[in-house]
């Protein structure tokens, strides 16, 4: 049986976080009553003309700069024509053969282009399905019409649904950290279409692709792509051909339905927008865009790994959640050069985040990041806590107890240690007699240890812990044991 390879390219529409619309001065507000943010321009009234929003161009250039794409030297808009009530002018002002950004790359996926355009209005179809088929009437809300969009088009370099969804997470985080969009999939500020085809492994030519429209969560994207790959595979294995068409994935039923076939596809009649002749991108705008690009998740992860020596997993976790990364770096600063960076990363990435997320109930979707900077645990306190543990002033268990207190009440770790009597049983001098007593009480264990079998050392550690009420350091107990027994 032939093995098939999946080929996926993504088209992502991102609403840009400008104050006003792409071609008029209407404010952008999500959730206001319908048709309250409109004007003659965005309603396409006779005689009106578009005026480009420079901020939208600046944000688009930032995206391009972040991806390392080639930034256009001039702005050229085209009209894309089709009749639909969500398009008040009968055409969408978009870009065609001269996109704002050409090429670029993010992580493991290359980009074809990024262009800017205006969003359509929001149509609501009356009827059970909420889709146009079967509805008897529709209403239009032009508040969204004219929202600036960046359309990001990847090369067909994605090979699985899982890769698609994890790359999209990277994209979303990158755009979020760029500050160019709210990237809220539920509100539609980030929307994703996938072009999907399959081909026999080893083939270099692309198979016939289908376009899966508007999937609004990472989970649906994975499910949708997998369902479509399964459908195409079944077709091909049954000796049929894949038709080029636009598809809709219904996450409730898992089914895929056709929206329109190629026969009915539009001739968009692109032509240069005569109301906006080409204009050079002003240098100030370009410089301002370039200056506004911060260190992005992938770069930061790389720095955490190579310069600070963090493990790959910690580096990505802290870099991909900017609030954690910022808090991490502040903690390093507060803990001085001596801080054990991986330990700090572990305490933030595991212990602190787990405690803070347990506190939160308001944001189950996890759309916004947990921000330790908003908690009662100051970076200085965390640095001090990690130092106490690393210097074996307290053991890890005790450290966790201290953290519980800090999360709940704040304060200084040293004060908590003293108040709760959590200080570790000092250095070797204090601990050695206790270890010796434990060895004396467990001759059978000593015998096994002497043969080189270190497994039973847990019994010695347990005995010491019991004696010290858990304040001893397990590693130190092992070290002293080895020393006494000359191992």
């Amino acid at each position, binding site marked *: 049986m032939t093995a098939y390879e999946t080929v996926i390219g993504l088209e992502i529409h991102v609403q840009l976080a400008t104050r006003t619309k792409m071609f008029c001065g209407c404010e952008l507000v999500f959730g206001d009553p319908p048709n309250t943010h409109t004007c003659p321009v965005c*309603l396409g009234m*006779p*005689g009106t003309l578009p005026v480009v929003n420079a901020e939208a161009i600046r944000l688009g250039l930032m995206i391009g700069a972040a991806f390392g794409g080639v930034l256009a030297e001039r702005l050229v808009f085209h009209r894309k024509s089709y009749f639909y009530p969500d398009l008040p002018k009968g055409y969408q002002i978009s870009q065609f053969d001269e996109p704002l950004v050409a090429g670029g790359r993010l992580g493991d996926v290359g980009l074809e282009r990024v262009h800017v355009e205006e969003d359509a209005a929001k149509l609501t179809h009356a009827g059970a399905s909420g889709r146009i088929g079967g509805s008897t009437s529709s209403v239009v809300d032009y508040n969204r019409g004219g929202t600036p969009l960046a359309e990001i088009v990847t090369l067909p370099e994605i090979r699985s649904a899982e890769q698609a969804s994890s790359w999209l997470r990277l994209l979303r985080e990158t755009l979020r950290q760029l500050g160019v969009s709210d990237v809220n999939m539920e509100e539609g500020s980030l929307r994703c279409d996938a072009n999907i085809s399959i081909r026999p492994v080893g083939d270099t030519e692309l198979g016939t692709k289908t376009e899966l429209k508007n999937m609004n969560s990472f989970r649906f994207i994975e499910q949708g792509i997998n369902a479509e790959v399964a459908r195409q595979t079944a077709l091909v294995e049954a000796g049929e051909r894949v038709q080029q068409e636009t598809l809709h994935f219904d996450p409730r039923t898992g089914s895929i339905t056709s929206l329109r076939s190629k026969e009915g596809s539009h001739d968009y*009649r692109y*032509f240069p927008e005569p109301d906006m002749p080409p204009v050079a991108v002003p240098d100030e705008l370009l410089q301002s865009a370039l200056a506004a690009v911060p260190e992005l998740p992938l770069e930061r992860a790389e720095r955490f790994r190579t310069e600070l020596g963090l493990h790959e997993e910690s580096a990505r976790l802290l870099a991909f959640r900017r609030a954690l990364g910022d808090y991490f770096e502040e903690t390093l600063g507060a803990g001085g050069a001596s801080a054990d960076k991986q330990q700090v990363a572990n305490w933030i990435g595991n212990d602190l985040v787990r405690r803070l997320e347990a506190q939160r109930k308001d944001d189950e979707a996890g759309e916004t990041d947990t921000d330790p900077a908003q908690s009662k645990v100051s970076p200085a306190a965390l640095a001090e806590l990690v130092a106490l543990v690393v210097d074996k002033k307290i053991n890890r268990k005790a450290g966790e107890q201290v953290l519980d207190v800090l999360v709940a009440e704040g304060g200084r770790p040293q004060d908590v240690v003293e108040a709760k009597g959590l200080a570790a049983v000092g250095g070797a001098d204090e601990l050695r007699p206790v270890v010796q007593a434990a060895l004396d009480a467990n001759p059978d264990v000593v015998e096994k240890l002497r043969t080189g079998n270190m497994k039973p050392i847990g019994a010695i550690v347990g005995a010491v812990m019991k004696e010290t009420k858990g304040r001893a350091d397990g590693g130190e107990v092992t070290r002293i044991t080895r020393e006494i027994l000359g191992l």
Partner: protein
Amino acid sequence: MTDPISLSVIDAASALRRGDLSQDELFTAYRDRAAADDTNSFTWLADDLRAGLGDRDRAPGTDRPLAGVPLAVKDLFCVTGVPTASASELLRGYRPPYTATAIDRLQHEGATILGKTNQDEFAMGSSNENSAFGPVLNPWDRTKVPGGSSGGSAAAVAAGLAPAAIGTDTGGSVRQPAALCGVVGLKPTYGTVSRYGMIAFASSLDQAGPITRTVADAAVLFRAMTGPADRNDMTSIGWAGQAAGIEVPSAERLDGVRIGVPTALLGEGVEPGVRAAFDAALRTAEGLGATVVEVELPHARHALAAYYLLAPAEASSNLARFDGVRYGNRADIGDGGLVELYTKTRHDGFGAEVKRRIMLGTYALSSGFYDAYYRRAQQVRTKIVEDFRAVHEQVDLLATPTSPTVAWGLGERTDDPVAMYQADVTTLPQSLAGVPAISIPCGLSEGLPVGLQLSGAAFSEQRILDAAHALEQTLGFDVTAAWMPAPPASRPAPSASASTGKDAA
């Protein structure tokens, strides 16, 4: 006292300022004439002076340059609350929520709107026969067309129904009706007057301009309409000509002015009577000190073909918004769906010429045809722009007849669109080049006015106005001949070399 309707814009404005005339008196004089109009020039008339001020809560000022001057405004200019249909059935009854920048600037200078004037539907036509409000009749001969598309604007001025009018020119729509009606029409450099609020025909060509009795009036109105670039229009440059701004022309001579005649362009289509009046005007220019030379515009002969691809292409897209969803007249579709709504609304709402151009333009932009038509036409346009740049290295002005013929009979060309399109053959090159051009009446042929077109490099309006003024003074054409009783002896004598309005009066 002089009859108020005999006054030019400039003279009326100073009479109003001096208090020799009241604003209401002037307005009423024209309002009464316009109400009794038999040329079908108007689509709407303001009830009173205040109605024509737009939506401003202000009394008509007396301190502004155009205070109290009533203007006839082409229907396609949006004016808050005033019926604006671009002479289309689809928009009949539509009242815009805002005022076009050009009109707003005129109102700011004190002008008031007398009424909206008839035109070809969406400015598509050369005879003003394509109007939902019916054809306009030429005041010189009511069996003839007034030209188009600003036919109502030109006829209103030629018939003495308004002291001046505002039109728009896409391929000749100000100049050609001005020529056929024996009045002055100025098409400014593309970008000098904001297009915001003009219902678009072809975005890269549309340009507003005044239609007046005198060249000086055209200067005054143009000065009011231009000014700083309009922030609502990215194609608006505003006035980028000489720093002092447009001055009222006073030149009497043409010494040192080099006038080029693109002889090849005139070809065989120019009627002998038109040619005679044109040649006489050239001799007059020479008599005033100008030198006249032949020049070449090698690509201008392709202007007609390029224009009738580019303009319909842009129009097919500009008119897509008229779908019956948000404004305008929506067809009754019973239980029909969206496609029926679009189809029937546009079927019922658009006239035949508009549909023809939408189809032409849609075809030219279609996948597979774009390169052969639209892109090719753009390349031709670029060549024409270069031709004009080169020719103005040699000459200051170009002169042609504005129209190859005088006004033709109503209905004569309605079945032959290509013959109709030929009417614009001498005005289209300047439109594609985006340069300024004026038409002034230079004589009569068969009792009907002949227009002389003078054009120049971009932003050379002042030079054009100066030269046109000097010629106007010498040619002595009587622009009021179509409606004024026998002219008093004090009027300028006709030029000896040209046949003028006097002969027809």
